[in-house]
């Protein structure tokens, strides 16, 4: 247990997990829509505030798991309640806690029916999302990972669009089918290592066959969640039908769980298999980038467009992870945050149009610039950020990833470049249509510009777009020690085990 920096005194992480849950339980007993909105805003805001103390107390010089807590849960099976954060997970936790208040605000007017139940779902969703990122026991992780499907399913199925039944079932089936073999892999790892403690499973001498099988089980679960290229088909459906808050959570946090899983589990637990299978996965990422870009270019539905752009962006993230060098990994982690900020904001923007026009059709939202100047200003910045314009956050992330890719393999990097161009093409196309449109714009004069509430929702996203874009060093500092420790261990491992490398020259 020397990997853990046990937190004495106040159990901060447990508090972060339980606070939204407790808030949700209160909602079960108190009806009343106004109260539910206010209460959820207070709870999520409080969670966000408390999570700041994670940042202030975090020791960036240590690669250990900090704020750790360990309690017995099911001693007979060596299952414990162990939580902790390190440089890989801390930003994702913060992203989650900070995103939730804005999801609540974004649903303030959008959700008109069954408000209490909606807020209840949001709160237990937050509990399980934080739980996934901080869990250091594999069973605990799996419990949060699977449980999350229920509130997310309900968010889409109850408050979703016209094809909600189809989209929600597809989402549930895909994700669940992906993770059943993960469960088998977890048990197999437990039988080899004797505990469910995740760090204890890392860097162990497993046979190559075992590693490959475990890796494939991991990969299936996480690749569906990311989603990587051939497994992405649930994403556009789910995004399009989900309510705004659901889309934001889905894009900003849920997709990150897949890449977080790849980074947290695949690399350290099955290093040989990772090196063996990295090349095909890299090419799948390229396929995702290009496929996502081309498909996004053809969309008429704004949410679908952004959903396919997510496929492309997440392709960059997996690309960064599997080039297995420090630039790539840090870029990937940063890009996970960037994508959370930018795509979340874009979905919020689309949600704001939808609240006014009741349509997500691009053709019906043309020529807004004249009537909604504030709105298009925000939209323009987020669109620029989305295709990695210099000065915005995604530029840093994509730049690092591409730099890492060039270091790894030039052909691969050259293959990824068109993705960046495509991103500019589909984003500018959308922006052009929304701001100016053409001669046949529908009458938009009835539209009102953003309200104060909506500006409050979007402004922090804008702030982070520029902060990460202009001064990313504090963010990179947070993750640097953990990432370099991971890579150092990987390289030591590699030197001892040359077998894998020989097979894929």
């Amino acid at each position, binding site marked *: 247990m020397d990997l853990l920096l046990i937190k004495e005194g106040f159990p901060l992480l447990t508090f972060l997990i339980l606070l939204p849950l407790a808030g949700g339980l209160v909602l079960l007993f108190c009806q009343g829509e106004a109260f539910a909105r206010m209460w959820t805003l207070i709870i999520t805001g409080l969670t966000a505030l408390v999570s700041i103390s994670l940042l202030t107390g975090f020791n960036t010089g240590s690669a250990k798991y900090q704020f750790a807590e360990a309690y*017995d*849960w*099911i*001693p*007979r*099976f060596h299952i414990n309640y162990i939580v902790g954060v390190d440089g890989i997970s801390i930003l994702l936790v913060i992203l989650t806690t900070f995103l939730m208040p804005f999801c609540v605000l974004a649903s303030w007017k959008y959700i008109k029916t069954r408000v209490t139940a909606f807020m209840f779902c949001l709160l237990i969703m937050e509990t399980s999302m934080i739980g996934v990122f901080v869990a250091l026991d594999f*069973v605990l992780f*799996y*419990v*949060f990972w*699977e*449980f999350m*499907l*229920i509130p997310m*399913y*309900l968010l889409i*199925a*109850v408050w*979703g669009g016209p094809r*909600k*039944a189809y989209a*929600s*079932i597809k989402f*549930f*089936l895909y994700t*669940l*089918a992906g993770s*059943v*073999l993960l*469960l*088998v892999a977890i*048990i*197999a790892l*437990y*039988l080899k290592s004797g505990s469910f403690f995740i760090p204890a499973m890392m860097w162990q001498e497993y046979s190559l066959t075992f590693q490959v099988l475990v890796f494939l089980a991991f990969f299936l679960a996480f690749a569906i969640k990311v989603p990587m290229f051939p497994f992405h088909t649930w994403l556009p459906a789910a995004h399009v039908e989900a309510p705004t808050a659901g889309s934001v959570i889905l894009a900003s946090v849920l997709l990150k769980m897949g890449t977080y899983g790849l980074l947290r589990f695949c690399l350290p637990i099955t290093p040989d298999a990772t090196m063996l299978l990295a090349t095909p996965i890299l090419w799948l990422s390229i396929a995702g980038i290009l496929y996502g870009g081309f498909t996004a270019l053809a969309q008429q539905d704004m949410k679908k467009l952004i959903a396919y752009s997510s496929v492309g962006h997440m392709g960059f993230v997996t690309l960064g992870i599997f080039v297995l060098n420090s630039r790539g990994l840090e870029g990937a982690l940063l890009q996970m945050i960037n994508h959370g900020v930018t795509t979340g904001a874009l979905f919020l923007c689309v949600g704001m149009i939808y609240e006014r026009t009741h349509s997500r059709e691009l053709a019906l939202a043309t020529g807004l610039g004249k009537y909604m100047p504030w709105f298009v200003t925000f939209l323009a910045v987020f669109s620029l950020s989305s295709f990695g314009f210099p000065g915005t956050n995604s530029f840093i992330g994509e730049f690092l990833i591409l730099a890492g890719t060039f270091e790894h393999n030039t052909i691969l990097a050259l293959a990824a470049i068109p993705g960046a161009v495509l991103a500019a093409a589909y984003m500018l196309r959308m922006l052009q249509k929304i701001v100016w449109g053409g001669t046949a714009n529908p009458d938009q004069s009835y539209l009102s510009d953003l309200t104060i509430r909506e500006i409050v929702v979007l402004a922090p996203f804008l702030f982070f777009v520029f902060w990460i874009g202009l001064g990313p060093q504090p963010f990179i500092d947070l993750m640097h020690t953990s990432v370099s420790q991971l890579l150092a261990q990987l390289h030591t491992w590699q030197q001892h085990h040359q077998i894998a490398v020989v097979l894929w020259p």
Partner: protein
Amino acid sequence: MVILPELVLLTGALAFFMVSLGKTPDRNVVKSIALFFGSATFIATCLSFQSQATLFYGVYAIDAYSQMFKVLIGFSLVLLLIAGQNLKGIDDSVRPEYYLFLLLSVLGLMMLVSSVELLTIFISLELSSFALYLLVPMRDDRTGCRVQMEAGIKYILFGVMATGFMLYGMSYLFGLTGTTYLKDIIIFLAKGHLQPAIVVAVVMVLGGFFYKLAVFPMHFWVPDIYQGASNETTAFIATIPKFGAVALLIRFLTLPTGQSPFLIELLVVIAVCSMFYGNLSALVQKDIKRMLGFSGIAHGGFVILGLVTLKGEGFGLAIYYIAGYVLMNLACFLVISNVSKAGENLQVEDFNGLHQRQPVLAFILTVGLFALAGIPPFVGFMAKFMVLASALRADHLLVVCLAAINTAIAIYYYLSVVKAVYTSNPGERPLVTVSPTIQAAGVLLVVVIILMGALPARFIDFAGTVVQTIL
């Protein structure tokens, strides 16, 4: 007072016998008597929980093992009686008889878990089964084509066949060992008087309990009986008798046959076949009770998977699994019995928009179904996870993978009900009103389902230790 629960049940049955002789009383009176005896039984099981005794020349053992099952049976009985208190599908005139046979059947099960001698086992099992056979055709004849009679006949024919197998196996056991006492049989076999015929005998006896548990290949009765019996009767068939089946399966699997590799292989095949048969058939069902019937076959497969290790730990997990399964099923049937307007069968689309018609029931049903599907943090997940872990520890990798894949198959049909509840338009379907007690019972079930799933350590430890006492 070591057999207090049995005595309470017997008194209850006799009371209903007396009631049934006179003029049919008001339905509320009948209901109250039933609830009184149900609660009294549960209290009695709790009171006699610590008892230890061997009665009737050693054929009847009161030990930690039997008392644990009795508490589980008593608890489920109370919830079952509360959930199905309206008995919508049963005519007023036969309700006293209905409760008479229901209590007799439970009595049979209580005796079954205490029986440690072949003839006692047989008598208890028949007491429980024949009472149950009679409950099925007691449904009122709403369709005019007497499906409940058909179901009753099928049930009894299949049941008698299974009993025949079991008796034949018992006769082998007696013939080979010269005794009907389980503990003497164990001693005799442990001395090394092993013959292949022992395996034949044990497998035949197990067959009788496979029938009760409804696993492949003794599952053929399930769909028709589930559909033909009234909702409340099906709720009973689908839940409490499974305790007896698992209790006795464990007792017989502890017999040293000398051929455990063969037994393990057999159990593995049964488990896998049950899961695939149950889940694949459930996918296409429209009738909710048929669907739950097939899902029960699949869950039976998981219970068998817990037994394949033939070790105390696996047996403990099987008990945990079946306890969880019964609770989840009770939650579902509580909703089914109360959504059904006049006791008719429900199709999946009859649940359309239930969350608008009755949000509490919708919530209970959703929890029950997600738990059956094995989503954390409910008991269904923990039980499934533990069973898979113990099977993988015993090196059944392929089976564990197949079982995991089955989880993914199963989610579809559970979700299709949840989908109906939450996303479909209720249309013309009326609001559903339920009494607060039923809602409270449902919420209690939900709480227990979550607690048993989130904090399973004590139950699993307890079940594991108790099983060790009979090994």
